[in-house]
C-alpha cells in the first residue's frame, strides 16, 4: 500500500463554526485513512478546555479574566451573527434537526478515529493554561518546530 497520507490542521480559531470546519476535516480525513494531527493554538485552546463553561483559569489576574471571558467549548461564538452567544445553540439545534453531526459528536468521532491533538506551548504560557486544564485527549504540549516536523510530508491547513 502507498505511504499513508497526512493532514495537519492548525486550529487557531475558537469560533464555533471554524471549530466545526476543523473537526469535519479531521474526522473526514481520518475516516478516509489519513493520519491527522491537530495543533491547537490561541483561541483554539478554548475548544479543548476540560471545563466547557466559564472558569477562572490561570494565576495572574489578566489570565484569569481572559480565560473567564473566553470560556470553554460551550461558549464558542459564531464568527458572524453570534447574537450574544445564542446562535451557536440555535445552530446546534438546526444541525440535530437535519441529522448533521454536532461539534460534540465530531469531537467524539475524532477521539475514536485516533486523531492526534496537541496544544501550543507558547499560547498556553501566555494565557496561563496548563495541560491539566485541557481534556485528556491532548497528547502533548509542543512548539512550532515539533508541529512543522510532524507536518513535513502532510497537507497543512490553518483554520
Amino acid at each position, binding site marked *: *500500500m502507498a505511504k499513508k497520507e497526512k493532514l495537519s490542521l492548525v486550529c487557531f480559531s475558537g469560533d464555533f463554526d471554524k471549530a466545526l470546519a476543523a473537526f*469535519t*476535516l479531521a*474526522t*473526514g480525513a*481520518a*475516516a*478516509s*485513512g489519513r493520519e491527522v494531527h491537530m495543533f491547537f493554538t490561541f483561541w483554539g485552546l478554548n475548544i479543548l478546555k476540560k471545563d466547557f463553561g466559564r472558569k477562572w483559569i490561570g494565576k495572574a489576574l489578566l489570565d484569569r479574566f481572559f480565560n473567564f471571558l473566553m470560556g470553554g467549548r460551550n461558549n464558542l461564538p459564531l464568527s458572524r451573527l453570534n447574537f450574544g452567544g445564542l446562535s451557536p445553540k440555535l445552530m446546534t439545534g438546526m444541525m440535530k434537526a*437535519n*441529522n*448533521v*453531526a454536532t461539534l460534540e*459528536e*465530531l469531537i467524539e*468521532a475524532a477521539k*475514536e*478515529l485516533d486523531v492526534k491533538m496537541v496544544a501550543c506551548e507558547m499560547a498556553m504560557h501566555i494565557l496561563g493554561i496548563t495541560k491539566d486544564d485541557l481534556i485528556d485527549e491532548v497528547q502533548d504540549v509542543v512548539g512550532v518546530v515539533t508541529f512543522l516536523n510532524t507536518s513535513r510530508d502532510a497537507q497543512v491547513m490553518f483554520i
Partner: protein
Amino acid sequence: MEHFLDITKDHCPMTFVKVKVKLSKIETGDRLEVLLSEGEPLNNVPRSATEQGYKVLEVTAVEGNVHKVVIEK
C-alpha cells in the same frame, strides 16, 4: 460474521466516520453491509474502503436512491 449499518440519514463526514469506526471494530474476514444514499456516500464510501485495503463485494440499488454496499474486512 455479518454486520449491518444504515447511514442513509447521515451526512458528511459522519457517513465515512461511522463506516470506518464500524470496520475498525469488526474481525478480519467479517462482512459489513452498509445502506447508503446516492451522491457523496455512494461515490466515496466504496472507493475509500477499497483504498484502505478492504474488499468491496457488492454494490446494489435497493430502492429509491438507497444502495447496499457489502464490504469485507
